[in-house]
């Protein structure tokens, strides 16, 4: 379980997060939604200790953020940040291979190689495994980064807008893979999604954030409503239901 209590965050003088308390149970997909600038990325990077936690407390299972080593956390939680920029020229297989780093510390063994191949296969990257990252499409690159997080083989996966750059087939394909990882591999996935319809279709829980505060949490059915769109997203788009599932009419 990821547990946040009383988490606030300031950048400069501005308060970005206001006293957030939240329990994310183990298992399933939680979608973090909210308008641009709501604080979603900030929240994710606090949980993943990439931004130092100044106020409040976060625990991931038994690990306390700020009180555990980077390495211990790297074996429990993987994060894929919103913007990924690799300065070096790496092959897809090498990138995915770095996901194993927390386990082998630079000396990959046969088990690591097997897991890397499995990750490549699962994310459909085998045909392009030997290509350089600057020789593949943005969508393929995005998938390679998710595969790297998967190869890290952690119970918790934090993904910040992984559907960026993906076309509809890529986005659906990736969400299905994540769904599969949650269902078959018991991963706990916290994912920032831009598109509420994807959240409704694939997530078990939704956490809506606005101006650094939690505006709503619950199952997609309960959370996604005309009121949510108006209060959180400031839009008067309507919700309809298709096959019993909420759907935002854009």
């Amino acid at each position, binding site marked *: 379980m990821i547990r946040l209590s009383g988490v606030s965050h300031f950048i400069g003088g501005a308060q970005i997060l206001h006293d957030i308390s939240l329990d994310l149970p183990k298992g399933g997909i939680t979608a973090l939604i909210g308008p641009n600038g709501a604080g979603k990325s900030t929240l994710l990077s606090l949980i993943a200790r990439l931004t130092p936690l100044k106020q409040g407390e976060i625990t991931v299972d038994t690990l306390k953020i700020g009180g555990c080593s980077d390495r211990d956390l790297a*074996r429990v939680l993987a994060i894929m940040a919103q913007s990924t920029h690799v300065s070096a020229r790496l*092959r897809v297989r090498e990138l995915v291979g770095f996901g194993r780093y927390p386990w082998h510390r630079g000396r990959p063994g046969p088990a690591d190689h097997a897991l890397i191949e499995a990750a490549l296969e699962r994310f459909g990257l085998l045909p392009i495994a030997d290509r350089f990252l600057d020789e593949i499409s943005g969508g393929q690159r995005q998938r390679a980064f998710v595969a790297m997080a998967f190869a890290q083989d952690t119970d918790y996966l934090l993904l910040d807008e992984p559907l960026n750059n993906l076309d509809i087939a890529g986005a659906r394909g990736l969400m299905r893979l994540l769904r599969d990882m949650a269902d078959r591999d018991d991963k706990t996935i916290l994912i920032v999604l831009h598109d509420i319809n994807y959240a409704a279709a694939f997530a078990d829980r939704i956490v809506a954030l606005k101006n650094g505060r939690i505006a709503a949490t619950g199952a997609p059915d309960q959370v996604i409503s005309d009121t949510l769109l108006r209060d959180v997203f400031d839009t008067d788009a309507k919700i309809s239901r298709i096959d019993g599932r909420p759907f935002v009419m854009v």
Partner: protein
Amino acid sequence: MPVSLSGFLTDPDSQQVLIVSRLPRTLAALLAGAALAVTGQIMQILARNRFVEPMTAGAGQSAALGILIASVVFPASAIWAKMGVSALTTLIGSAGLLLLIRPLPPTQPLLVPLVALVYGGVIGAVVTFFAYQGDMMQFLGSWLTGELSGVLQGRYELLWGAAAAAGVTWLIADRITVLSLGENAARGLGLNVALVSGLGLAAISVTTAMVVVTLGAIPFVGLVIPNIIARRMGDNLRRALPVAALSGAGLVLVGDMLGRTLRAPFEIPVASLVGIAGAVVFLALLYSEPRRG
């Protein structure tokens, strides 16, 4: 003095020339070239930019500043003590550059080499100013323009240290490569970013200082070799560093041989030859690099 194979086998004088001068000079070229190419590649990972290398990006100038300070303040100190001061100023100089380029956007890759060149130029100007004030101008050329004509047995052995410092980085090659994913992603993988960056910087500084103290600055080896290797085989340092070392060694050796023969009996400093060739290759690389936003 010409040394032939038969002469070497029979003539003690030839043997002497070989052992005291020719062999050290060859070794010096190989060691310096290998070390420079390796540290160039590491610098590029630390700076997260293809177009910087220590010699032109402030480290070389800082190394010269260190020797200058040591020579003026402790003129009687041993060469390794001067080297120590030089390594320290190099460390400060290269760390300063990394701090300076940190806020630059990765989408504008050409800003980094620009800033680095200006930074190196400013430190170089400071060095010249103090050399002038301290009446050390005659030494300045020997630090800023690397050449191997003075290499003799007993006067190049620091370069073994430079090569060793570069060699140590191979042991942490994977960790340094992980850094290229960016600081956050590297920490997410549990990498001790500060430690690995620190070790990389230390290796760069020790290597640069040793080369500058022993031979003088040799530019572009650390730029051209890593760039060509990255194109051909990528930046996975565990595989790339040995190739970089070999190529750098070859480049400096060939540069020195050409410099000795082109205008014999006069010598063209290896730094000038490599510098001219490197500048041309560098421009070609700049223009052929695919821009990504």
